[in-house]
């Protein structure tokens, strides 16, 4: 009936036609077979075979229904009667695979607990692992005693089993596992290599939130009692964590624990050497002297016979090359020989490292090697190479010709969307940043859209062509490519081509009549959107329509960037109810929400630590603020709310009353909204008001206060204070706050308050209104375009010395903080060790004035930071004001 596990070898059978012992296996039949588990006389070997078949089914992706799983589980528990060791092991596996429900667990608990105290170490170790996988925290307290013993058991397998289970249990029942730290500490001293490793891992996890304890742990262990390579790797990770945290506090002097990391480079085990080398290269602000020993060992790895080792080394060096290209140049010869490595991952990493470290003279030689290389690697590697070439080209603009040629050659070859997109993006960036490359780059792009299967890319290129093409020496040569799209492509691309034609028409007068002819032909297009666009542009360019009275308006309409975040527009449109009043696009909030960015981060492939779990989506409060404020009659006349700040805490955490404040900025008023929470159950607060002393803020005068009638325990309430200020004046100042109220005792049992109250007051922290409060963080998608579209007349440039600063990054974030603007294109991140940095900011100043700022930072002398500030805005006066802010800040 049952298929025998061991199949007799049939010599007549062709080797190809070999069939597996599980051929034709069927779930129903195996479940039937599982009845042998109920036999009074258990056949251990037979039962083993059946369990193996069940596990095979699960392993192949079969699933059991709830009923089937329960049945198998109960049958399996019967097998504890057998003394057969092999069968017992399979029973353990089966129980883990079935992951029984809580009420089922109880049935096996006693059997497993018996095994946990068995004389056979193998039973004990496995029973611990199984039991800890399936029990809940109430049962855990029952077996806790045994587990503590097991941790210090002299058999390393048992100890490891208990420790690893501890790591697992820490997630579900941390309070229990934390009680084991004495035992775990003892196990760290174990002579068994793996016990030491598991104990260290668990001990660190128990203490990970206690920075001091981790630092102590590292200090004691780095003196050397750790022998296991795995444990040593762990220790290196913890050490670099401690270094990271301590360097934030103390600057200068020798880096603590560096000697330890360096000594690990001489360890016997390669994994430890690699771990240490990597830890050194990733140190914050690592110096070239610190890097040298690490680079030397990695260089040795490059010529290893083991691919894994070569890969590990080249990957690490590749990362170093991004920040310290000079430190890696010594390895260039070894690197070049890796280009022909059998393993293409290694070859790609070697190539890109060379591209990062290469100098101007080696570019041509490298490009020659690359051409052969590109054809036999996968798309994802090609993307890496393309990105490396792009940055190389930006570094050596003179070499653009050969690099651009290379890009256009690979653009012509086969490839998926992501790869093509990487190439197109690179070409576009090169065109933008290297003026000489413009004509040839645009030409390559035109060639590409002649035969491009991706609608998205065609429209992207057409849009770009419309902006850049008209400014070239001979715009007419692009028209053919664009109009071909109108004839040959799908509706989306056709519509996009029509817009591009219109842009040429608007900017190049000599082409206007011909563009008109082409646009008129589009009026007979089969698609609505294409026809509509053609009609609109014809009217617009013909100057007959009301939309574009002057040429400036036409250009504004055609080229102006759409700076309203689409998410906000979408919500506003959804909220809009059809009525007499038309939808007003200027009422859409310009504030960029940080939410989409946070979401993007969590969907990334990076392991999500506990920190990222906390930074959930930021609640969007703006709309609710506006509603709340306009519902208060005193504030209704203040006009349109310009900006609401994030809440600023005015009390320490865990005090009796917790208060934070939100600053609402209007054109001529400021409303402070105090959110108060009463954290004492025995008190009821009444007539709560914040007394604000504005003597240090003389540009403000108090106009209204709205007190809070009553503030019961744990239900937050708001009180408001409103100030008047001159419109257009950048009023700043410091406010001191005192919370005043009448306090009444509450009987906790009945919840009733006394009739008599006592007046009391509570000192809050000071609040500042800074110039950043008058600035909305509004991002632009393309800073360069936005910058160029602004009036150069409005530009104001000046230089500032910022004095001694801790680091460039610190100076950059300080200036961003003062201005309160949105950093664009990720320029708020300063690569470590760079000596200069450019930061792009954008925002909207009160009065709806768009402002763009370009900041160039440089180090002049040790830690002295100098800054050049260039501002463009819709209003030159505001540009001056931005300079004033920085000068005073």
């Amino acid at each position: 009936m049952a298929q025998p596990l061991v199949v007799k070898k049939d010599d007549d059978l062709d080797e190809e036609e070999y069939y597996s012992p599980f051929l034709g296996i069927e779930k129903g039949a195996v479940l039937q077979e599982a009845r042998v588990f109920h036999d009074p006389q258990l056949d251990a070997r037979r039962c083993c075979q059946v369990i193996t078949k069940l596990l095979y089914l699960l392993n192949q992706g079969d699933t059991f229904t709830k009923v089937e799983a329960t049945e198998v589980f109960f049958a399996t528990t019967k097998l504890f009667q057998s003394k057969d060791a092999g069968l017992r092991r399979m029973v353990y596996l089966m129980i883990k695979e079935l992951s029984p429900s809580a009420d089922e667990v109880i049935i096996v608990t006693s059997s497993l607990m018996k095994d946990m105290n068995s004389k056979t170490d193998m039973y004990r170790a496995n029973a611990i692992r199984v039991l800890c996988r399936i029990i809940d925290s109430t049962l855990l307290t029952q077996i806790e005693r045994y587990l503590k013993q097991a941790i210090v058991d002299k058999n390393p397998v048992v100890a490891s089993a208990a420790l690893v289970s501890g790591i697992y249990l820490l997630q579900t029942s941390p309070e229990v596992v934390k009680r084991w730290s004495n035992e775990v500490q003892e196990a760290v001293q174990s002579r068994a290599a793996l016990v030491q490793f598991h104990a260290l891992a668990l001990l660190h996890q128990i203490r990970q939130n206690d920075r001091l304890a981790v630092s102590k742990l590292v200090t004691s262990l780095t003196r050397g009692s750790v022998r296991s390579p795995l444990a040593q790797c762990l220790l290196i990770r913890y050490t670099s964590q401690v270094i990271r945290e301590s360097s934030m506090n103390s600057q200068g002097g020798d880096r603590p624990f560096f000697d330890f990391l360096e000594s690990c480079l001489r360890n016997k085990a390669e994994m430890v050497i690699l771990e240490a080398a990597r830890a050194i290269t990733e140190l914050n602000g690592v110096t070239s002297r610190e890097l040298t020993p690490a680079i030397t060992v990695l260089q040795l790895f490059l010529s290893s016979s083991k691919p894994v080792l070569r890969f590990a080394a080249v990957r690490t060096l590749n990362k170093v090359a991004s920040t310290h290209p000079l430190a890696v140049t010594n390895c260039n010869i070894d690197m070049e020989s890796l280009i022909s490595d059998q393993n293409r991952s290694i070859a790609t990493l070697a190539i890109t490292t060379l591209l990062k470290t290469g100098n101007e003279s080696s570019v041509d030689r490298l490009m020659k090697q690359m051409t052969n290389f590109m054809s036999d690697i996968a798309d994802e590697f090609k993307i890496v190479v393309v990105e490396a070439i792009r940055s190389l080209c930006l570094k050596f603009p003179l070499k653009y010709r050969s690099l651009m040629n290379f890009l256009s050659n690979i653009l012509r070859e086969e490839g998926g969307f992501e790869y093509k997109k990487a190439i197109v993006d690179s070409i576009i960036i090169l065109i933008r940043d290297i003026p000489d490359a413009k004509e040839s780059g645009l030409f390559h792009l035109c060639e590409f859209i002649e035969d491009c299967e991706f609608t998205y890319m065609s429209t992207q290129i057409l849009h770009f062509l419309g902006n850049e093409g008209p400014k070239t020496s001979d715009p007419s040569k692009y028209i053919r490519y664009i109009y071909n799209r109108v004839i040959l492509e799908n509706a989306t691309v056709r519509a996009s081509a029509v817009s591009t034609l219109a842009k040429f028409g608007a900017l190049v007068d000599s082409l206007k009549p011909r563009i008109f002819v082409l646009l008129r032909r589009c009026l007979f297009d089969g698609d609505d959107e294409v026809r509509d666009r053609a009609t609109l542009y014809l009217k617009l360019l013909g100057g007959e329509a009301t939309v574009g009275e002057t040429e400036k308006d036409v250009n504004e309409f055609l080229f102006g960037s759409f700076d309203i975040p689409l998410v906000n527009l979408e919500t506003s449109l959804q909220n809009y109810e059809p009525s007499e009043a038309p939808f007003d696009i200027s009422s859409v909030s310009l504030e960029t929400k940080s939410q989409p960015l946070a979401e993007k981060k969590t969907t990334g492939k990076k392991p999500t630590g506990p920190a990222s779990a906390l930074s959930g989506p930021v609640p969007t409060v703006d709309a609710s603020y506006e509603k709340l404020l306009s519902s208060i009659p005193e504030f209704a006349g203040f006009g349109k709310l310009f900006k609401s700040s994030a809440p600023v805490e005015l009390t320490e955490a865990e005090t009796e009353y917790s208060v934070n404040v939100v600053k609402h900025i209007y054109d001529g008023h400021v409303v402070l909204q105090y959110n108060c929470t009463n954290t004492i159950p025995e008190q009821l607060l009444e007539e709560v008001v914040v007394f604000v002393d504005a003597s240090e803020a003389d540009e403000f005068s108090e106009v209204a206060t709205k007190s809070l009638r009553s503030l019961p325990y744990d239900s937050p309430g708001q009180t408001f204070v409103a100030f008047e200020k001159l419109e257009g004046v950048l009023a700043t100042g410091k406010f001191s706050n005192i919370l005043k109220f009448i306090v009444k005792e509450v009987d906790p049992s009945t919840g009733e308050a006394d009739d008599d109250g006592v007046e009391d007051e509570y000192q809050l922290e000071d609040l500042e209104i800074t110039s950043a409060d008058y600035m909305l963080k509004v991002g632009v998608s393309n800073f360069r375009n936005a910058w160029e579209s602004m009036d150069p007349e409005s530009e104001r440039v000046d230089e500032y010395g910022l004095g001694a600063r801790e680091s460039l990054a610190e100076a950059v974030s300080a200036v961003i903080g003062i201005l309160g603007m949105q950093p664009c294109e990720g320029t708020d991140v300063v690569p470590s060790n760079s000596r200069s940095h450019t930061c792009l900011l954008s925002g909207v100043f009160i009065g709806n004035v768009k402002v763009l700022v370009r900041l160039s930072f440089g180090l002049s002398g040790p830690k002295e930071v100098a800054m050049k500030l260039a501002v463009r805005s819709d209003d030159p006066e505001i540009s001056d004001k931005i300079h004033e802010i920085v000068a005073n800040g």
Partner: protein
Amino acid sequence: MESCPSVKNILLLDSEGKRVAVKYYTDDWPTLSAKLAFEKSVFVKTQKATAGAEAEIVMFDGHIVVYKFIQDLHFFVTGGEEENELILASVLQGFTDAVDIILRNNVDKRTALENLDLILLCLDEIVDGGIVLETEGSVIAEKVSAHGIEGATSLAEQTIVQALTTAREHLTKSLLM
């Protein structure tokens, strides 16, 4: 959790990319189809590689995979992007060594399937919940077979020294009890 070296999965596939035995330790691939898709892409990406004595390595989709082919069996160990490659390689080495011992140097798909119970136990002994339990192939094999089905035969194969140490252990244990 981030700082502890961890293994995301161990795969044993045949020369057509079909499962012989697999074990996933994390929820990076929550569904069966996600798992199968991953196995397929691993298999395809490593197909061209020449199987040598040394473990090979590939990186894609934010994972590092170290792998080794023996006869018609493909062994894979997967870790995260930031993982120490050599730790993963030592897990792979332990796995292949153990399988070699368990299958008595007949490492091929047929023998592996015939002894699937031992292969599954082997996977269970190498990694628990992503944490490396043991990387020494002979130790893993011993854990699997010492009490395994062929417990009796393995006793016959023990050298005299081994037999003596086992006997001594038993003796001391019974004395202690």
